[in-house]
């Protein structure tokens, strides 16, 4: 079980590699048509119909204020489960590309650096070291703020 706990799905945004705990991942899909929904925050690209379920899609580039959001054939949508006040929510995250499923031992995970009030750093659970590379381990539950979740909640059936 310990092994299961330490498995992460790695993906790439711009030049950096991020990781999401594998139990948070519902599934990985290729890019598909996104239906734009008005009056939503900028980082919400719209919704997709995944086998009958409407799922809001968040562009992580926009969310992390990384410029140059262009979708290619490598662009993927990672469908994740988020725990929030109103129970579990399903969201799609647009990333540049997905890499692999990595097993990272506890000793190779360090706490994220803290500066100032530390609000921004809350979205990271830690920083994993795999060989010489660094993988930022993303806490999907904290990617969206409460307000954001509220704003988005109305599009969920």
């Amino acid at each position, binding site marked *: 079980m310990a092994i299961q706990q330490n498995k992460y799905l790695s993906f790439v945004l711009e030049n950096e590699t991020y990781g999401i705990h*594998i*139990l948070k991942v519902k*599934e990985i899909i*290729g890019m598909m048509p996104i239906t734009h929904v008005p009056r939503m925050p900028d980082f919400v690209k719209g919704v997709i119909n995944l086998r009958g379920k409407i799922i809001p899609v968040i562009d992580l580039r926009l969310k992390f204020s990384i410029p140059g959001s262009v979708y290619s*054939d490598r662009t*993927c949508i990672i469908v994740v489960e988020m725990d929030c006040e109103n129970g579990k929510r399903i969201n799609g995250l647009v990333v540049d590309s997905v890499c*692999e499923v990595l097993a990272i031992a506890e000793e190779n995970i360090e706490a994220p650096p803290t500066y100032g009030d530390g609000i921004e750093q809350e979205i990271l659970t830690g920083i994993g070291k795999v060989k010489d590379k660094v993988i930022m381990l993303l806490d999907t539950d904290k990617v969206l703020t409460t307000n954001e979740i509220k704003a988005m909640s109305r599009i969920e059936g």
Partner: protein
Amino acid sequence: MKWFFEQKVSVKLLVSFVLVSLIAGIIGITGTINLSTIDGGYKGLYDNYGLALADMGFVSKEYQRIRNYVRDIYINDDPTLTENNKKAIEECKKNIAERLKRFEVAVKNQPVEGVLKDLKRQMEVYYGESDKLIKTIDDDKRDAAFQSMYNGAWRSSAIEVNRLIDEIFTSMEKAGEEKRDQFGKKASNTIIIMIVLSVIAILFASLLGWGVSRNINGLLTGLTERLSQSSKMVASAAAQLAAASQQLAEGSNEQAASIEETSATMNETASMINQNNENTRQASDLSEQAKGAAGAGFSKMNNMIVSMEELKKSSDKIAKIIKVIDDIAFQTNILALNAAVEAARAGEAGMGFAVVAEEVRNLAQRSAQAAKDTAEIIERNIELSRQGVDVSAEVLKSLEEINLKSQNVNSIVGEITAASEEQSRGIQQINEAVSQMEKVTQHNAATAEESAAAAQELQSQAEELEHVVFELNNMVKGAEAEKELLDRYKRNTPSKKSMSSYRNSFANSSSLDRNIHSLKQASFKPVSQTKNSLSPQEVIPLEEDNEF
């Protein structure tokens, strides 16, 4: 007189002779006229006086016979005799009439004509009386007859006849004497005239002869002087001409040799040009071949470009296929990741599946990597083929240039060939000209030798002329000229040959002619055969004629 001395010699001589002939003719004609006058006079003297007197004498004789016959008739009775006498009287009458008629013609228009008429009348009277008398005798009236015969009419008429005849004789004699005196005077006049004319003619002819001969002699003397000088100058000119001709002959021979060398060189040049022609022709062929090769390369290059294009297209297709493979690998990767996620969710039960998913993901990754590699290779291929196309285009350009250049080379070679042919023709023409020159030079040499011979002949002719001048001078001046001319020759002739030797040499002119003839024979040989072996001195032995 001036006109006369201005005329040519023949005219002078002709005029002189004509003048002398005219004078002689005048003398002859005068003499002839006078002689014929005298001759006519003497003929007249004979016809008009001699014959007339003879006729008159005959008339007188016949008349006396008639008288005798009449007396016989009276004396004889014999009738036969009487009859014969009568016949004789008639005969005599006839003779008298005939002679009187001739006499009348002879003395026509002369003073004696009147007397003749009287005589004729008186003769008729006498005949009448005679007939009467004979009739009386026949009638036998002898007395009456006797009376008539000695005292009667018959006798008086007979005396009258006699008197008239005598008168005629006297008159005729006187007229004859006058005539004789007249002719004698005329003859002596003629003689004087002839003598005077002859003297004048002799004087005039002598004067004319002297003048003409002096004049002609003067002219001839001047002419012989000039002729002599001219002949000397001609001789020296001929000698110079001979020398010049000899030099010309030598020069012509040298020229002929040079021309032959030129001709040989020209032939070499011509063969070199022919070689050039051959080479340019080969170069033309080669450049033509190069052009063909370039053309072939061109078309092959085009083919290659087409192939490159094809290759590029194929590469594109392969790229598409690779893309599809890549997509599949991607999808497979996603599927594998999903599988891994699912396996992770499954917990312990999903452990094996997770391994499979990992393996699938690895395969997908390898597939993607292979596709990527292939894509790179294909990319590289496409790049290379594009470079190949570029290089091909450049090669094509180069080939086009080669084509163009070989066309240029071809045209230049063509020009060279044309120029070479032109040159060849030029050389041909030069060759012809050179051979023409050779001919002309040979001809010149022959002509020069001929002219040398001619000059020599001219020299000898000039010497002959000198001799002729000498002869002429001799003729003009006589014996003194020879001495004078001899002195002059001694002074002027460097060879100091005497005139006698000069004359001897002239006398040997036939041998000289033979020399000239043999010389001509030698010099007219074709020069081309003897060109190198025969020197002009051999052809023209000029030393020989120095002794002349």
